């Protein structure tokens, strides 16, 4: 049967879902509606190689327009501003109306904005999309002392890139460590030391009281009354799922769109995937929302299968990375449910990993090291987590013993 399938949101989850649907269903119409006037592209380089000029905008696309054409996947640049789930219709800002039989929502997430008293809205920059990355890149070329508000992954990656562009960078973080509570303090400290060694200033435990514009520069007043002078401000203070469109509908929302393990939402024929979805993970037996490249891809693929009628559970063990200076940080599984922590290695040059165990089984791990040094072990850890078996802690804690041994057993 020929269906109209609409994918709302032309990002990573959306494009992977579209291609997966086509793999399983040669007949249906597949249309991606995206508000960015760009084919789906990779966001990770925006804060890294794109700012550093090592990658150009055209290097970021997942697929060329030829691939979409060959697979008969339509992409339309349009912003949807109203949804009628009952009548299966989407309404666009230009009065276009789109009817669907199946809908995938993959609207991603958006940056939280600072709440500021005075009218500095247009003075503070955020990074989520290519347009913003281009603007930041252009402006920083004339700036010297840049302040990043928020010491999360994206803020720190920007700090690393700008430092490599010879800028003086200050990072202000409200918490008592970088990268929030998911990252073990020891790893956050190793990353912090690397920033400091490269000349970045890291200020922890401080809140912004006030930002004042002084000619072309800014003065940031912190809650200990200290003043920071800076000529450019970028904020990376976290993100929220893009769900405003659904707030007055029947769609069940709770930190994103609630989905089951099949990417199904509370409304029939409506699916959600990627950053926007708070999905049920059968292995961890709980809901979670992830903002990661691997998840957007795999979740999109899983949604695609289910939309095409190939019932498939989403069981992927979470994984994400961050690159800062010569460091590669990786997280797998979940690191907030454990009764034991095991450390592997203590030198960033060889990689340092913390394993989080519950009932002697691995639930997750977080590692950091000079590029290339933690990836293999983290990958093996994902496999061990998935296997759900009791692990030999001696092997986990001794960097001289290869983790491969644990898989083969």
């Amino acid at each position, binding site marked *: 049967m020929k269906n109209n399938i609409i994918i709302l949101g032309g990002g990573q989850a959306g494009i992977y879902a579209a291609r997966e649907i086509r793999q399983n269903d040669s007949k249906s119409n597949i249309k991606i509606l995206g508000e960015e006037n760009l084919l789906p592209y*990779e966001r*990770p380089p925006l804060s890294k*190689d794109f700012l550093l000029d090592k990658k150009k905008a055209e290097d970021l696309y*997942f697929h060329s327009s030829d691939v979409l054409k060959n697979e008969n996947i339509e992409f339309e640049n349009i912003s949807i501003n109203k949804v009628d789930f009952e009548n299966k219709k989407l309404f666009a800002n230009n009065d276009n109306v789109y009817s669907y039989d199946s809908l995938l929502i993959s609207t991603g997430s958006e940056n939280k904005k600072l709440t500021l008293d005075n009218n500095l809205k247009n003075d503070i920059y955020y990074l989520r999309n290519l347009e913003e990355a281009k603007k930041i890149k252009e402006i920083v070329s004339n700036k010297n002392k840049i302040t990043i508000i928020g010491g999360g992954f994206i803020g720190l990656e920007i700090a690393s890139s700008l430092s490599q562009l010879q800028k003086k960078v200050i990072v202000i973080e409200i918490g008592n460590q970088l990268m929030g509570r998911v990252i073990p303090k020891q790893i956050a400290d190793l990353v912090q030391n690397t920033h400091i060694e490269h000349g970045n200033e890291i200020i922890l435990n401080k809140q912004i009281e006030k930002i004042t514009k002084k000619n072309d520069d800014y003065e940031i007043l912190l809650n200990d009354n200290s003043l920071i002078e800076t000529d450019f401000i970028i904020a990376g203070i976290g993100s929220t799922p893009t769900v405003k469109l659904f707030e007055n509908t029947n769609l069940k929302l709770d930190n994103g769109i609630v989905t089951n393990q099949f990417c199904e939402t509370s409304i029939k024929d409506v699916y959600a995937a990627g950053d926007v979805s708070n999905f049920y993970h059968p292995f961890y037996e709980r809901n979670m929302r992830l903002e990661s*490249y*691997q998840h957007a*891809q795999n979740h999109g693929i899983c949604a695609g299968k289910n939309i095409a009628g190939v019932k498939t559970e989403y069981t992927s063990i979470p*994984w994400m*990375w961050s*690159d800062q200076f010569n460091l*590669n940080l990786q997280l797998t599984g979940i690191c907030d449910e454990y009764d034991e922590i095991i450390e592997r290695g203590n030198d960033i040059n060889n990689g340092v990993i913390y394993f989080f165990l519950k009932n002697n089984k691995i639930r997750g791990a977080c590692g950091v090291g000079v*590029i*290339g*040094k*933690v*990836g*293999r072990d983290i*990958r*093996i850890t994902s496999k061990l987590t998935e296997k759900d078996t009791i692990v030999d802690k001696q092997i986990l804690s001794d960097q001289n013993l290869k983790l491969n041994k644990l898989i083969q057993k």
Partner: protein
Amino acid sequence: MSEENWIEVGSTDSIEEEDLIRFDHQDKTFCVYKLTDGFYATDGICTHEAVHLEDGLVMDDEIECPMHQGIFNIKSGEALSPPACEDLKTYPVKVDNDKIFIKID
């Protein structure tokens, strides 16, 4: 291609099965693998970003990059999983008297 292009990498027992070694020659880096059915060689640097694949994970016929989990087929060099999208160059390998040689063009 002439005989000289066969470069000695090392002895066959220098690589464990389902594993690899890094081999540097002049200014280039290669990875030489021992799979269940023999030896194979590819470029040593990921095509996504400049990362040595020597720290990657070998699984069956695939090498997975340690940085962003890009996956390549070791025998064909084909990029199988994003963010890797450009194929990896492969090289012929021969074994002679328990020594591994790769042919570099």
